[in-house]
């Protein structure tokens, strides 16, 4: 919250800021996700750059008022280009003692705490594991505390509403939102519209929610407690049309757009699992685009049905998270052998086993690369931001169809549920996805299911139902070209090499790595997936300080881009932050014999950019890196 000038606006002070980080925290029943979502939409529409991070509790409904029941939503908005939802919040909205207990320690010193004082009875405190009332024992010292009994205020405001008291109380999140809208100079109109839509069938709910919001706004404007409002001017964004988007959503849009472009029916086989279920939900709403969704009996059936769909000429997709990936391994091997297109979406979560379903991690990379029996290479690509997931979903379809092989897409819980403004692409300019099914066979000729394209080595996609193409394929090793079962030594070697070469050939299809900063220097920070934002933010800061540091985010993990080796060799050190125990670092060390330094964090939370910053500073210091003011203005990309 870097303050600039104070401008007169209302009777109270109005201060311009260039960014703000707000965290909403409350019981999972308190509507924190909805509140955060409304603030986000409004703010996006007002032209700020914004990044969000919902942090769900493990339980759907943990006992009210307890620590495990706390749900949070952090958002950061700014008047400049941002890459992460921020580290420590400037403002914490705590709806009960439990939310206070869990989140207070992260509130920036001197930050604003908006505390709902409605439930601070001895029992409430006990549930939150407070021995004494934190409001009176000095716990809150050092923060700017604003205490409001949100329940009492909301009940007052809704005196004329037809809702019962319970229903009225449930509007308290909207009261809090109203306060924040005043504090941060937000427009209430988008929320009015959204709430009217959301509860279209229950006008009394619309009325109560909006009344509560407006009352909150008025309360902040009139009471003495609130002295200043803040304004964050719009960001300088690239011209174009924007839409705020969450990762799972944009991944789906990428797939549907690719399906349309390719002229293929999409078939999703899936089994519900957090945090991937929303992909199943959302694709189920695209029936008008010909998307077939199949909720299978388990993940094995899910991937198998997708393989069957691809075999018959649709594009098979399966979506899941880590435990489901483990179940799909054997079937993915079949798709590799049958050389069929298949897109496998793994929205990673904290493992192993059931792990922490609502928390994020990127520890399934080695599983994606190697987690199958035999030599079983597939293409592996990773989404790095909510908006990037669109391109990655699209690219996955393009690669799967062009090379006739499975593509694993890695996303994670952070990308899936996080959101950001997305500069909408021109649909006309999306890359073409040509699909050529094998034509009808001529009488007297025998169809060769493994005759290959000279350039890509892809085999023909032969749709059952096409005359003259009858043939047999399967998971057993087969002779190249004819596809007949074959156990000969030389043939097996040839087929193993060919399947590997097919994946390797994709490297020729990948654009050079985009770096932020020059392609040589002291430190290269590499990343993949959702660490991109934190890496970019820390790198830019260090560049500003004059360090010879650059960063790059890899979309393709298999195959790796052709220019990666040379890029890494252009730096004294390569640092690789990952939310795992150093999985990509291990691959790069093995493949390039470069001493890649792993910076690992596996705690279920995304990296904080200040942690990466601190680590990079240490690395730079160890190199005796000298600052060079000249490089500070290095262009990005």
């Amino acid at each position, binding site marked *: 919250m870097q303050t600039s000038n104070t401008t007169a606006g209302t009777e109270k002070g109005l201060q311009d800021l260039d960014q703000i980080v707000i965290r909403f925290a409350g019981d999972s029943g308190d509507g924190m996700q909805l509140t955060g979502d409304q603030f986000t939409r409004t703010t996006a529409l007002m032209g700020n750059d914004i990044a969000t991070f919902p942090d769900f509790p493990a339980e759907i409904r943990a006992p009210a008022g307890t620590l495990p029941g706390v749900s949070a939503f952090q958002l950061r908005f700014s008047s400049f280009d941002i890459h992460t939802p921020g580290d420590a919040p400037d403002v914490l909205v705590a709806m009960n003692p439990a939310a206070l207990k869990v989140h207070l320690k992260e509130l920036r010193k001197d930050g604003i705490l908006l505390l709902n004082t409605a439930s601070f009875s001895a029992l409430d405190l006990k549930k939150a594991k407070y021995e004494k009332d934190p409001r009176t024992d000095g716990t809150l010292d050092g923060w700017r505390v604003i205490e409001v009994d949100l329940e009492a205020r909301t009940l007052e405001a809704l005196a004329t509403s037809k809702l019962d008291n319970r229903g009225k109380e449930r509007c308290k999140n909207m009261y809090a939102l109203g306060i924040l809208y005043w504090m941060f100079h937000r427009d209430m109109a988008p929320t009015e519209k959204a709430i009217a839509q959301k509860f279209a069938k229950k006008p009394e709910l619309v009325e109560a929610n909006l009344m509560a919001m407006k009352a909150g706004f008025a309360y902040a404007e009139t009471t003495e407690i609130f002295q200043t409002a803040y304004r964050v001017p719009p960001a300088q964004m690239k011209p174009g049309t924007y*839409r705020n988007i969450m990762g799972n959503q944009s991944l789906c*849009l990428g797939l549907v757009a690719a399906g349309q472009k390719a002229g293929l029916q999409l078939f999703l086989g899936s089994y519900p699992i957090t945090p991937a279920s929303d992909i199943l939900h959302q694709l189920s709403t695209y029936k008008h685009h010909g*998307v*077939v969704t199949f909720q*299978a009996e388990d993940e094995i059936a899910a991937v198998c*049905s997708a393989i069957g769909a691809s075999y018959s000429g649709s594009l098979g997709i399966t979506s899941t998270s880590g435990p489901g990936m483990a179940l799909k391994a054997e079937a993915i091997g079949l798709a590799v052998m049958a050389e069929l297109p298949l897109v496998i979406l793994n929205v990673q979560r904290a493992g192993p086993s059931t792990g922490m379903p609502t928390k994020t991690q990127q520890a399934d990379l080695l599983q994606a690369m190697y987690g199958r029996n035999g030599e079983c290479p597939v293409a592996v690509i990773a989404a790095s931001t909510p908006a990037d997931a669109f391109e990655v979903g699209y690219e996955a379809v393009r690669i799967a169809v062009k090379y006739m092989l499975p593509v694993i897409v890695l996303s994670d819980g952070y990308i899936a549920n996080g959101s950001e403004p997305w500069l909408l692409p021109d649909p006309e300019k999306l890359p073409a996805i040509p699909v050529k099914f094998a034509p009808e066979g001529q009488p007297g000729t025998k169809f060769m299911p493994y005759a290959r394209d000279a350039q890509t080595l892809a085999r023909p996609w032969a749709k059952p139902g096409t005359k003259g193409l009858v043939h047999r394929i399967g998971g057993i090793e087969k002779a190249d070209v004819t596809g007949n079962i074959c156990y000969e030594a030389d043939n097996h070697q040839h087929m193993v090499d060919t399947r590997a070469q097919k994946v390797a050939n994709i490297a020729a299809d990948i654009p050079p790595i985009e770096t932020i900063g020059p392609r040589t220097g002291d430190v290269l920070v590499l990343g993949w997936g959702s660490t991109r934002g934190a890496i970019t933010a820390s790198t830019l800061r260090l560049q500003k300080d004059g360090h010879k540091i650059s960063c790059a985010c890899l979309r393709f993990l298999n195959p790796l881009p052709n220019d990666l080796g040379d890029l890494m060799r252009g730096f004294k050190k390569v640092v690789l932050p990952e939310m795992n125990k150093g999985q990509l670092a291990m691959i790069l060390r093995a493949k390039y014999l470069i001493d890649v330094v792993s910076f690992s964090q596996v705690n279920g939370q995304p990296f904080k950019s200040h942690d990466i910053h601190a680590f990079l500073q240490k690395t730079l210091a160890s190199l005796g890196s000298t600052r060079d003011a000249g490089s500070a203005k290095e262009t990005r990309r």
Partner: protein
Amino acid sequence: MTAVPTSPAPLTKKDYKTDQEVRWCPGCGDYSILNAVQGAFAKLGKQLHETVIVSGIGCSSRFPYYMETFGFHTIHGRAPAIATGVKTSNPALDVWVVTGDGDAMSIGGNHFIHAMRRNVGLKILMFNNRIYGLTKGQFSPTSEQGKVTKSSPLGSVDYPFSPIALSLGAGGTFIARGIDVFGPHLEDTICKASAHKGTALVEIYQNCNIFNDGAYKGFTEKEVRDERILYLEHGKPLLFGANKDKGIRFDANFQPQIVTGADLDKAFVWDETAANVAPAMALATMSEGEFPVPVGVFRRREKPNFETGIQAQITAAKSKKKESIRDLLFAGEIWDVS
């Protein structure tokens, strides 16, 4: 001149044979099944390219290589799931699943019951030899208790279950049984399965002469057949014996009883289309030792297919809403930055 579409010459059994050498053990019951399937297919009036055969893993699952149709030899137990994807994405295809008692009842049990439950238009041929053939002779979920195999040297402790009863429980709409050595009956049963719209199961008793030889000898040998086999015939009483002088009725507790002589007219009249599964269940679970072994159709009920329902939703949605990629992407709250 307008081209007159010539309907292709009807196919023969031979047309369905492939150039691949059949690799089952000499004397294996799978040969007779292959013969019956080819015979049946020749009668179905389809063209080669309209049919897909999906199999799992096992001796039985080698089947597709010997049929001149589209064939997909997949992984152990998963054929119904893969076939569900094939059929759902292209309902016009004629999709068959070939599987074994281990493949379908053990590792693939889950997919099997859910295919039955959904009523996907698949025809499932389950070769039941009551043994794991390909892995050289371990007991299977249909092996009798006490079976001595390499993995059960003191006899298996497991109880077997009846695939027919399982399918009845799973809501199957066509459930039948045939036997490898009863070629014409099997061929006929396969044709009936093919005519059924929803999921059709044909359990085929198959002799594995290497690891479970004679498993069905007790009721299939020429000398005992007539007395030991009960042919289920729609609309006819349940009669068996060389002179059809024995019958099956059900007592007040739905226990099957053998009736003879003057009681013969109390024999239960078989209705394969009955809504009540109880009679079929009673036949499927009656003791093989005490009662004759039923073959033929246990159940045949019409019910809308899964894939038809799915595609109907798609068709309806498509006609209701047309959306370009642009409209798809530029949806919700969007804003312009200039």
